[in-house]
């Protein structure tokens, strides 16, 4: 809108010097991180550049169907990411479906409500609003859900004896798993709780900083940031709850038995 400094690709190349420095440090100290760092940086560059092109095209087209298609792509990728981040996963389609379904439902409900009731762009699905909003909501829900599921699945694997001890005493599956369900929910919600508590003083949120850098009035940027934070917290909480209960439902059966056989073996990462 007002004045902002436009960036050239040369500026970005210059900024990558610091990441290169990290790479040199990793080689020098033998951290073994240089390869992963390089791959991650290149992925970030390529993915964001492509997304920039996709968004530009979508904004130009202004088609609800193409917007919906991109939303679907985002959801599928988020589901895959949640699946990939778990140490041991539920076997079969359930393993993908529980995380993806929980996120689609929670992020979808929150995003639709935000667009239809709060921000109210015209039309309500306008890609300029819908896609960035959904992206931020989904990204955080994805983090929360994958943390919660990872924690729950680890507990089912490691604490199977403690869970079964309660089942043997006549506890229901929900009673028997309660301590571990609670720990999983706590783990999933911790990042967003911490983010809300520390925001503004320690860290300026990325979205708000970006808006201010791009020349928006800080007061307006703050209002959007608060809106986004609240939406993120709401959808993360809902997503984490749905995913954890869904997962526990699948890892037990109607006779209230623990079914670790439905969980794939844990693999050593790296």
């Amino acid at each position, binding site marked *: 809108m007002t004045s902002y400094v436009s960036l050239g690709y040369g500026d970005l190349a210059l900024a990558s010097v610091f990441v290169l420095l990290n790479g040199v440090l990793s080689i020098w100290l033998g951290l073994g991180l240089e390869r992963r760092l390089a791959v991650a940086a290149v992925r970030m560059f390529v993915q964001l550049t492509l997304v920039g092109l996709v968004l530009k095209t979508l904004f130009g087209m202004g088609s609800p169907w193409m917007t919906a298609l991109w939303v679907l792509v985002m959801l599928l990728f988020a589901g895959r990411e949640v699946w990939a981040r778990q140490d041991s996963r539920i076997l079969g389609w359930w393993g993908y479906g529980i995380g993806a379904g929980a996120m689609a439902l929670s992020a979808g409900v929150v995003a639709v409500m935000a667009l239809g009731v709060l921000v109210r762009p015209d039309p309500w699905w306008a890609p300029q609003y819908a896609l960035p909003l959904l992206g931020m909501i989904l990204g955080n829900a994805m983090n929360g859900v994958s943390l919660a599921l990872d924690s729950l699945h680890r507990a089912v694997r490691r604490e199977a004896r403690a*869970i*079964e*001890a309660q089942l*043997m005493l*006549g*506890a*229901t599956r929900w009673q028997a798993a309660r301590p571990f369900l609670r720990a999983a929910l706590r783990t999933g919600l911790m990042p967003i709780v911490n983010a809300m508590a520390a925001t503004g003083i320690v860290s300026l949120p990325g979205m708000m900083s970006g808006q201010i850098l791009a020349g928006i009035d800080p007061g307006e940027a703050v209002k959007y940031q608060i809106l986004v934070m609240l939406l993120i917290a709401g959808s993360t909480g809902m997503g984490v709850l749905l995913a954890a209960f869904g997962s526990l439902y699948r890892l037990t059966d109607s*006779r*209230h*038995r623990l079914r670790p056989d439905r969980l794939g073996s844990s693999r050593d990462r790296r």
Partner: protein
Amino acid sequence: MLRVRGLTRLALGPVDLEVADGDCLAITGPSGAGKSVLLRAIADLDPNEGTVSCTSCARDAVTGPDWRGRVALLPAESGWWGDAVAMHFRNPGGQRNLLGQVGMPAEAMGWDVARLSTGERHRLALMRALERGPEVLLLDEPTTMLDSGTTLLVEAMLRARMAQGLSILMVTHEAEQPVRMGARALWLEGGRLSASAQQGVGS
């Protein structure tokens, strides 16, 4: 009373057996014969086929938790979900009498699980199972980790419960235990139960 008909689970079975009220049935057999699998299947902790019933109901007629409240399993290694011993009991204050019967001090209810020896854990797990007042008790190697004196104490306590009507199905390696418990003994090998208890000892 416990009645099992045509029970199968993986390589186990079909198994038929019956334990009358106040009776004890002992199962022996080589390692890996499926003894623990059998007990878990009866308690409905793993998917299995067959009909099982106790005096008050058939297994299929009640929920899993309800069934396991009537037919309690004490596994060879007990699980603990809290730090304090007392957390695992409904009424920690009412255990004083029973603690003495199994040779443990009354303070044990105030201990942490982490400081328990294997034998202490096992006796407390047995008390925890009895506290729910089951009709049938499934015991997996109930005295393997106890010294001989404590073993006799626990057996005496169990016989007193049997006199009140408790049915016990136990898996044991000790040849003398079925005799002391006044139990019939069956032999489990290759997933099949046979009546001749002493036949294959040592094989």
